[in-house]
């Protein structure tokens, strides 16, 4: 058997990979076969019957297996008695497909006519008008008029909320089942179902809350009609009024490729505004999906009313609007005075260009380059990461994926999806976590370890006599490719440092270090933490003390004061504080100088994702007045401090990065913008095929070459895990996708799904011991602070711990002893 087959479609011979459906093969031949229920990312079901074509197969002699021939020598073709669905038929050698015959045309017209009998024909008021498969295909293949009596139409509700984010119009639904299949096959959340049967078939949700999934928005992209719409875009704009702008989602380390749809809007005073987020195809990163956080909260913060639009300088104790010139002068003077005793604190949501300039500036001041994070290991991922030549989509049989200390769907949803898919393709999945999460469902081996034993658990895979199951150890040792995701669950800097070192050692000792396709992936809390490490920023042990001791602090893209009262107190002690920010954060309030920064939607730049892929984003809307990109602010400060930094062209900064940072050699803006053919062939003109996701025309990014690939594979020293409290009630930080972080909480759309106030989760038995019920208000005493929290029960929580989500109101960095009791007066 060969891996390709040759067939003829409408007279055109084409050779395609074996196993392809006729629809996909035709697409590669440039022949359009219309579909509704088929979607190239899901198993075909053959329900809608739109793709009926004539298929003939060569006849063979039963005895010899040879093709039978016509008199003229051509192969004899056996034509089916009926039309076949091209979405379920797989290509075979010598197959002949006809899509232009009268019979096929009649079938298409008939199926469309049937669909339209139940359709409300309300295109003029439909959000999908202009990008609706039913509309487009009807124009192309449908009947001109309807023979169905309008008064015979059954009417159905047109506004059925499937949860807070998605609205269903029952009349428009054509029952293709794409949304239901997406939720069960791809998202692993079977929260949608068909209800009733026959003509009464409906799509509904019975989950609690309704449509309980982080993936719901994708169903609106792949819905071929206007049946499913998002609450944020519904009645928002007509598709043809908007223009697309390529970007990258900046909410997690995956770096999903997205497209903003933008238009000028009277309601916004004639400003250009972003109307919605759609996925942009990158088969190596996010395929054609994005999570709901990225879709519904990815950009709103940039448009919020409270953006800073003027530089501020503290005068007589008050932050006062001033000119850029004055602010720059004041800041430069303050920084200059602190030469040798300055500290720059940068956040992982800055771009590589911002970070590079900030690093240069800090170096010029002989200052400390501090990264605002609780997770370590970026130096090791730069050395042992994935990078060039690897692609999670390639993983399958023979490969092993390890996920450790990560609630992957909460921390980096797309990676969860891709790990799940790799496991479904046959990769061995090993998950070690302190509690069960959603990824364990797909694991071949799942281990539970107690908090604090992360590094030890990884080391055990090197230890022959380990208790964690010989088969799993073998699967790690024997893996063709080994990919390890290590996350943030329950760990601060010391814990994650030890874990990262253990993972790196595992890669080295099992011979996977430096191998293409193998490597470690840090599930970072921020989108560009990796870039920040690469540009030279490092997390600081004892950040509070460092801040308090600094003569001058420059804070960019971080809000330490807002995150942690201890850091706020430390900043109060710092002598001089300069802040580059979008908003007047707690930190900015304490500053001496505040610069209004530009949002990523307003400018260019790059991020380096957790798989070591550098990706470029483009300006989508004009910048807010009086703002400047962080790299430019740094450059203008540099100008006054005697260091020449590029202030205008991020592409030029990237050229400098490529020279200065070894892993980035050869990365250019041109290379980042390159695209190549990706399958499936999705595209905007024929939405019927795969939905509204955008074809990628502006760059697939560049995967870095990790240092180990270059031979730098010395194993780090054996890690020593930090001491953490081992008994008594302990507070443990966990990451939730929907937290109350500064960016997410500015999304009105996502509000109903965000936690209202601080909460903690604990095991029902633990709650009982503490005399707490689900929903009770309790007081959490932790690290000297007391916090009012709502109690939620979670049977997956280990006993003895209180799960405290990060960024929902209780500052918590690593495992710490705590007390929890019913709030007085409750």
């Amino acid at each position, binding site marked *: 058997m060969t891996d390709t087959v040759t067939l003829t479609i409408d007279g055109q011979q084409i050779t395609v990979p074996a196993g392809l459906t006729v629809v996909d093969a035709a697409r590669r031949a440039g022949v359009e076969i219309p579909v509704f229920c088929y979607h190239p990312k899901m198993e075909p079901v053959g329900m809608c019957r739109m793709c009926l074509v004539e298929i003939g197969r060569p006849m063979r002699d039963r005895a010899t297996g040879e093709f039978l021939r016509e008199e003229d020598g051509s192969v004899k073709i056996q034509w089916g008695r*009926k039309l076949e669905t091209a979405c379920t038929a797989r290509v075979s050698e010598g197959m002949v497909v006809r899509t232009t015959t009268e019979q096929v045309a009649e079938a298409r017209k008939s199926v469309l006519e049937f669909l339209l009998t139940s359709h409300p024909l309300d295109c003029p008021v439909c959000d999908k008008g202009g990008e609706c498969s039913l509309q487009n295909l009807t124009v192309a293949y449908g009947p001109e008029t309807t023979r169905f009596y309008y008064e015979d139409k059954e009417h159905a509700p047109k506004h059925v909320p499937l949860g807070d984010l998605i609205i269903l119009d029952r009349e428009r639904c054509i029952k293709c089942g794409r949304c239901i299949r997406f939720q069960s096959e791809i998202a692993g959340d079977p929260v949608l179902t068909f209800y009733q*049967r026959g003509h009464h078939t409906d799509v509904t949700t019975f989950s609690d809350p309704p449509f309980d999934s982080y993936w719901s928005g994708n169903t609106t992209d792949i819905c071929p009609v206007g049946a499913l719409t998002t609450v944020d875009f519904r009645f928002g704009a007509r598709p043809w009024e908007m223009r697309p702008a390529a970007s990258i989602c900046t909410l997690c380390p995956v770096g999903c490729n997205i497209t903003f749809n933008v238009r000028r809007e009277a309601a916004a005073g004639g400003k250009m505004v972003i109307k919605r987020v759609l996925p942009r195809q990158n088969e190596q990163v996010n395929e054609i999906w994005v999570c709901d956080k990225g879709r519904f909260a990815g950009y709103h913060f940039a448009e919020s009313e409270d953006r800073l639009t003027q530089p501020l300088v503290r005068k007589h104790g008050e932050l006062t609007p001033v000119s850029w010139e004055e602010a720059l002068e004041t800041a430069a003077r303050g920084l200059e005075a602190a030469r040798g005793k300055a500290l720059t604190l940068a956040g992982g949501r800055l771009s590589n260009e911002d970070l590079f300039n900030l690093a240069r500036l800090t170096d010029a001041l002989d200052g400390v380059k501090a990264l605002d994070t609780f997770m370590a290991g970026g130096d090791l991922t730069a050395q042992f990461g994935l990078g060039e030549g690897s692609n999670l989509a390639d993983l399958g049989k023979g490969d092993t994926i390890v996920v450790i200390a990560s609630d992957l769907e909460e921390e980096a949803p797309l990676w969860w999806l891709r790990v799940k898919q790799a496991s479904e393709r046959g990769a061995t999945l090993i998950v070690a976590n302190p509690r069960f999460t959603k990824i364990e469902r797909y694991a071949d081996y799942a281990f539970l370890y107690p908090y604090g034993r992360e590094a030890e658990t990884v080391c055990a895979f090197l230890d022959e006599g380990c208790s964690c199951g010989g088969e799993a150890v073998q699967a790690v040792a024997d893996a063709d490719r080994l990919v390890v995701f290590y996350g943030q669950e329950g760990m601060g800097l010391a814990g994650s440092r030890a874990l990262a070192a253990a993972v790196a050692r595992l890669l080295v000792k099992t011979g996977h270090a430096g191998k293409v396709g193998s490597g470690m992936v840090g599930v970072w809390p921020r989108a560009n933490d990796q870039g920040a490490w690469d540009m030279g920023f490092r997390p600081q042990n004892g950040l509070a003390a460092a801040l308090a001791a600094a003569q001058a602090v420059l804070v960019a893209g971080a809000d330490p004061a807002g995150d942690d009262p201890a850091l706020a107190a430390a900043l109060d002690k710092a002598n001089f504080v300069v802040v580059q920010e979008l908003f007047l954060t707690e930190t900015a309030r304490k500053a001496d100088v505040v610069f209004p920064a530009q949002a990523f939607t307003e400018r260019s730049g790059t991020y380096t994702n957790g798989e070591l892929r550098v990706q470029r984003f483009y300006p989508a809307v004009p910048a807010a007045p009086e703002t400047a990109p962080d790299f430019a602010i740094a450059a203008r400060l540099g100008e006054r401090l005697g260091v020449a930094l590029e202030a205008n062209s991020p592409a030029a900064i990237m050229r400098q990065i490529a020279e200065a940072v070894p892993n980035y050699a050869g990365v250019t803006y041109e290379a980042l913008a390159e695209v190549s053919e990706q399958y499936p062939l999705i595209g905007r003109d024929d939405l019927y095929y795969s939905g509204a996701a955008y074809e990628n025309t502006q760059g697939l990014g560049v995967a870095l070459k990790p240092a180990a690939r270059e031979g730098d594979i010395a194993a780090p020293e054996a890690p020593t895990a930090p001491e953490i409290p081992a008994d008594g009630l302990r507070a443990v930080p966990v990451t939730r996708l929907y937290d109350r972080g500064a960016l997410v909480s500015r999304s009105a759309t996502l509000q109903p799904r965000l936690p209202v106030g601080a909460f903690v989760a604990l095991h029902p038995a633990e709650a009982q011991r503490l005399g707490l019920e689900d929903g009770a208000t309790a007081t959490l005493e932790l690290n000297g602070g007391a916090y009012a929290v709502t109690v939620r029960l979670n049977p997956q929580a280990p006993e003895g711990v209180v799960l405290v989500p990060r960024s929902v109101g209780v500052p918590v960095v690593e495992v710490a002893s705590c007390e929890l009791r019913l709030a007085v007066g409750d």
Partner: protein
Amino acid sequence: MAEYILLRHRDIPNIKDIGVYQEHGGFEAFRKAVTEMAPGDVTAEVKKSGLRGRGGAGFPTGMKWAFMDNRNWPHYVIANGDESEPGTFKDREIMEHNPFQFLEGVAIASYAVGANRAYVYLRGEFWHIAKWLDQKIAEMEAAGFLGDNLFGTDYSLRIYTHLGAGAYICGEETALMESLEGKRGQPRLRPPFPPSYGLYGKPTVINNVETLTNVPMIIARGADWYRTYGTEKSPGVKLFSLSGRVNKPGNYELPLGTTFRELIFEHGGGIIDGKKIKAIMPAGASSSLLPATDEVLDTPMDYESVPKMGGMLGSASVIVLDETVSIAWLVKKTVNFFRHESCGKCTPCREGTYWMERLTGRIASGEGALQDVETLYSVAKQIQGKTFCPLGEFSTMAVVTGIERFREDFDALVKAEASE
């Protein structure tokens, strides 16, 4: 007929008692198969008998058993007791009155294909039959005809009932398997076919209740004996469920090849009130309508002859229509049935039956126009050849043949022009 082969309770009233069944040779065929025959020999004997599926399609039973994929285990056997085709009520009589012969058939089929587990799928309405069969199965277990190490061999078998919940489509074999797996009863893509990918994705033989009830007698008395009944290509006996405008509706066990005339006038006692016979639906609601001409009445009811008249034998549920019946009314009834039972999976059936229901409703109520009859006809034609499973196709049979063969019944009801 000299002797009943399927409806043996009509000869032996208490054959539903295990003792009585045994007295009349019960389970001897199963014993013979398990202890004296290789599984392949059992299949070969059934093949030789020429037995064809009685569930509707008439597929040769032995050939189906021989298709089982022997590289993939375990194997399953399913007895299709969904019996939901309007006009069909034969399997019910077998299971109610001659249950052991049917269960023995299931057992022999299971042995032949190497299944250690068999299911009897019953339509949800057969609540009482499920209970009844559970009891009969328990009796067989107690008597050592089901369980482990049967007849001292290493062959083991258990039979279970599974109750559906009201859905005609679950008679279609792949929808039935979905239903048995606890899902919505919607048909699966075929291929793969059940003998390679069936219940739980495993090779599965599925046969109609009546089909399986033939098997013990074939094994006991041999294929040659069986072939003495019926015709060359349609050997054996068949249960004809006779209903509609006849004096004596009921099940009639007759050799394949018996004529419609004999069934309706000799056995069925002719037409109610001596009216004139008008049309025949030979296979329940999914039949084509055959005008009751002498040629049709004298057609032998077998798998070859009925198609020549423009119909199908199907499950042989013969519904008789007399001159008092308007075909436009009848078509409204059948379309209503299929609209109600369409599973909704595929567009032409889901939307087409709905559209046809609206049109037949208009026409039958006298509100239709001539053009509605034309539309109805074209909608039915437009469904054909495009549906996912045969149900959609079934829904069009009476419509198309009704309009083609009894056009005057429609014209009599409609106005020449649409009223709008």
